[in-house]
């Protein structure tokens, strides 16, 4: 009964979504409040039914009801409870159900908390949201139904892919999906605005919190996924430029640009075309990511199943939404009213540069992702585009962007004074150069660019600090008034500083890890000692242990530094009987932001074992950076005040250019 009720709830959600995609639009055309309000109650009811459907699937997994094909294929009665629950979205069908559940959640949130929106805007937004939802409900019901049954249920399930049996699965996909799907709201707002023909500063103010929420979750989701890959896959790598990773990076780049141009639109009523296009682009890239991951075009740990009908179905959805929205945009673009004017050198100008760099970077990643796929499909020629390509293309773009980041927030709106900003950033620049000199003198080996990149990271952080110092007047004013001004400073200003500093922090981590990591790969016997980066690791012995649904072989290493014993590290290798596969569980020793990383390879017959030991200096900064960025986002989100971009009045006549 649970299974069938869950199934039926999903069908009802589809029926409600269909009504929600038509009735409110008719209402908006007729200006009938009751018809427009249908959007609200159906969105809430949809959330209720999808929530019930999702809960039903969770219960089926927890109860190990193997009469449901999805449970049989992805669960095992002896799996720990946590993985029974997380296993719900550890497979194609379940993850799509989570996808629509989050879509309904955002729709429900707009319905519940969208009281500050004009009625017709809310009706339009929810109707567009329902279009997307209907398409995906149909997709799930027709091609990837998680509630299909088996008439004669098998006694035991086939278990979840062991790599996914990790706490990471509890966090990474929901976060990422909250990010991906969250951008559907910006998309719906953009389409609603195009349909209504009203795009202005107020619109940007309403869409801001939704974009910000999606961006925060996407940032954390990507960082979490990267850290998970780092400790679970056993190679100590944290980013592989794998198409699936790129699929999450692209919406992030476009979403970051969207965040910034929506800001300009809210404050200065400019960059309208940018904002609308980026809204469409960001969600399109989210859909593209879903397509790439879910269609089986790419085989990876994320592609749970390959089925051509799914690919074709998602491709249809993709074409319909991207093509349709771009057509609508092309039709309405000319009617967009021109917004505020600004000089090329101004805060707006800096943000245009930011948008340009981010979208070009995004295009580079898109090219690197799709080109090999296209080559394989059209020319039957297998190739991979990896780090060297991105180092040559993506990295210089981002270096340029980071160089510009400290200037942006310090330029005045409408017309800025680049020379003045440069003077104020002198201290930050000097700090960066000093660090370059120090690193140059101290570091042995590695790329000559590394010290420069670290200097750049320091410059970005110092730039963020300078911005706050300038705004509070820390150096020039008495302390009491500094405190007063710091309190009066909008939280969004603090948010900006934290997010920008996070970029610098992540950059320093990336450069240190890639340049100065040291590794030791060997086959070790009992009592062998490995020396890595000043640590001595002595292999104490190998032990077997029985887990709930796996057996594991644990190697114990006594770690000491300069003869002083530190701790015992116990990496392990788990073998899962049901799937006949194994996973490596790396052991990590953190000191400061650096980590010592031990993972096991295969054991030989003589009781020796292949061991990979890495020392990764400042590696944790790679993830602290995004966490800092997300914290900045939260600060900015908590700022309920309205944003105003006070333009700098002209002293002399300057040449202005239109916003678009």
């Amino acid at each position, binding site marked *: 009964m649970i299974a069938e009720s869950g199934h039926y709830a999903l069908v009802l959600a589809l029926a409600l979504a269909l009504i929600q995609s038509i009735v409110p639009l008719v209402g908006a055309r007729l*200006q009938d409040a009751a018809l427009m309000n*249908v959007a609200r109650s159906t969105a809430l009811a949809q959330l209720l039914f999808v929530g019930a459907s999702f809960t039903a699937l969770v219960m089926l997994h927890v109860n190990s009801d193997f009469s449901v094909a999805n449970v049989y294929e992805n669960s095992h009665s*002896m799996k720990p409870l946590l993985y029974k629950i997380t296993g719900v979205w550890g497979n194609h069908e379940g993850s799509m159900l989570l996808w629509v559940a989050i879509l309904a959640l955002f729709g429900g949130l707009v319905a519940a908390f969208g*009281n500050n929106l004009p009625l017709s805007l809310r009706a339009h937004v929810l109707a567009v949201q329902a279009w997307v939802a209907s398409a995906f409900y149909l997709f799930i019901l027709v091609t990837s139904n998680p509630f299909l049954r088996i008439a004669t249920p098998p006694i035991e399930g086939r278990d979840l892919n062991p790599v996914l049996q990790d706490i990471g699965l509890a966090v990474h996909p929901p976060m990422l999906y909250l990010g991906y799907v969250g951008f559907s709201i910006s998309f719906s707002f953009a389409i609603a605005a195009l349909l209504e023909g009203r795009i202005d500063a107020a619109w940007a103010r309403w869409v801001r919190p939704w974009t910000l929420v999606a961006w925060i979750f996407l940032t954390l989701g990507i960082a979490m996924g990267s850290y998970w890959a780092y400790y679970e896959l056993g190679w100590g790598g944290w980013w592989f430029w794998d198409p699936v990773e790129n699929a999450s990076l692209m919406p992030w780049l476009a979403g970051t640009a969207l965040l910034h141009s929506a800001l300009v639109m809210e404050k200065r009523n400019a960059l309208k075309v940018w904002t609308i296009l980026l809204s469409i682009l960001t969600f399109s890239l989210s859909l593209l990511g879903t397509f790439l991951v879910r269609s089986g075009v790419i085989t990876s740990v994320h592609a749970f199943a390959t089925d051509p009908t799914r690919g074709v179905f998602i491709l249809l959805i993709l074409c319909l939404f991207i093509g349709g929205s771009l057509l609508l945009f092309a039709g309405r673009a000319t009617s967009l009213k021109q917004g505020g004017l600004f000089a090329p050198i101004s805060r707006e100008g800096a943000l245009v540069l930011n948008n340009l760099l981010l979208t070009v970077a995004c295009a580079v990643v898109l090219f690197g992702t799709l080109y090999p796929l296209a080559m394989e499909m059209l020319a039957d020629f297998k190739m991979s585009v990896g780090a060297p390509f991105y180092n040559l293309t993506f990295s210089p773009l981002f270096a340029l962007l980071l160089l510009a980041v400290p200037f942006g927030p310090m330029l005045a709106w409408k017309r800025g004074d680049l020379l003045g900003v440069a003077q104020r950033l002198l201290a930050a620049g000097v700090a960066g150069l000093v660090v370059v000199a120090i690193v140059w003198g101290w570091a042995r080996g590695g790329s000559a660019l590394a010290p420069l990149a670290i200097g750049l990271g320091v410059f970005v952080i110092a730039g963020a600090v300078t911005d706050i110092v300038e705004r509070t007047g820390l150096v020039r004013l008495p302390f009491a008034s500094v405190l007063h001004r710091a309190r009066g400073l*909008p939280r969004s200003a603090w948010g900006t500083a934290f997010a920008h500093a996070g970029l610098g922090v992540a950059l320093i981590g990336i450069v240190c890890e890639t340049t100065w990591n040291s590794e030791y790969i060997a086959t070790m016997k009992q009592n062998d000692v490995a020396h890595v980066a000043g640590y001595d690791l002595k292999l104490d012995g190998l032990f077997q242990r029985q887990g709930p649904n796996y057996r594991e072989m644990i190697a114990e290493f006594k770690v000491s530094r300069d003869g002083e014993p530190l701790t015992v590290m116990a990496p392990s290798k788990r073998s899962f009987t049901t799937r006949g596969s194994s996973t490596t569980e790396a052991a990590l020793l953190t000191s400061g932001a650096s980590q010592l990383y031990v993972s096991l390879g295969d054991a030989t017959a003589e009781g020796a074992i292949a061991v990979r030991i890495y020392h990764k200096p400042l590696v944790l900064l790679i993830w602290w950076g995004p966490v800092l960025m997300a914290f900045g986002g939260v600060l900015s989100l908590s700022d309920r*005040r*309205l944003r105003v971009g006070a333009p700098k009045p002209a002293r002399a006549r300057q040449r202005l250019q239109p916003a678009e």
Partner: protein
Amino acid sequence: MTLWFVFALMTVAAIFAVLWPLGRGSRAPDQGSEVAVYKDQLAEIERDLAAGLIPAPEAEAARVEISRRLLAAAASEPAMAPKSNLKWRRAAAVLALGGLPLVAIGVYMPLGSPRLQDFPLAQRERGTGSGMAQSLETLVAQVEQHLEKNPTDGRGWNVLAPVLERLGRFDDAVRAYRNSLTYNGESAERRSDLGEAISAAAGGVVTAEAKTEFERAHALNADDPKANYFLGLAAEQDGRKDEAARIWRALLAKAPADAPWRALVQSSLARVGGGDTMPALSDETIAASKDLAEGDRNAMVRGMVDRLATRLKQNGDDVDGWLRLVRAYLVMGERDKAKGASADARQAVASDAERLRQLDEGLKTLGLGG
């Protein structure tokens, strides 16, 4: 029946969600407006100015800009007065009352299985409600579950291993025998059972790994019949027919008259003596191979063919062997390999005119002559 009742309740709830706002009259709904946003922005400027965050001239410029937007927004506002349209509301209500249940049933009926009960594991373990036959697979699954929790139960492994082998799950059988050895201790019988399972997993080929196990069994008990039989088979498969014959003859000499495996060894011996070199398998393995999936059986055949090919590469005098290999390739649909093999065969027997003639005749009958 309860299920349909639940469905009906859910449908009613969904319909209600659509009807509710339609029935709520035209009371002025709470909503935001652009005017409100711009007014708030104006207030914000005053606050920033008071806090000293923006200088006065900039505040003034911002005020001018926002006021301009405010005026524009206020001008377009009165056009938004709410109206009510009874005809369309009725249409929406009809859509909810008729269309929604129709869509729901129309989509659910072909996809759902309303007659199937839930089968949560707890309920099935009590054995109620499922009505499922306690098949062999179920029993095996239960024993496996038990052993997963108590991996040191040697007796359990002992019971499970032969059953797994019978079911054709050779890799699992190998693991089970290994565990049985670990927890029950060494014995010649278990070693040779393990060896048999390994060679079954390898498609009937006595691999080096399997041979090691038989040798260990032989060391523990020189008279263990299974170990002796398989060591002979290994010798045969390596092309040392004389040694195979010697081992099997010794085995038969010591064997009790009523040993069930006598016939098997005798026929094997006859095969070696008669010059037939097709590798033999124990009855159990052959029986198991009947249950194998198509792909597994192919792999088994392929293993044998590869072995024959390797042997012929080392010793190419055997015309019959060559013909058998070519025929096997033809049967497997690998015509190129068959041609390659016949070329190799010609080369191998080229020095002997009589054999070459035999070979050519044989190849002609296979359709590869000339």
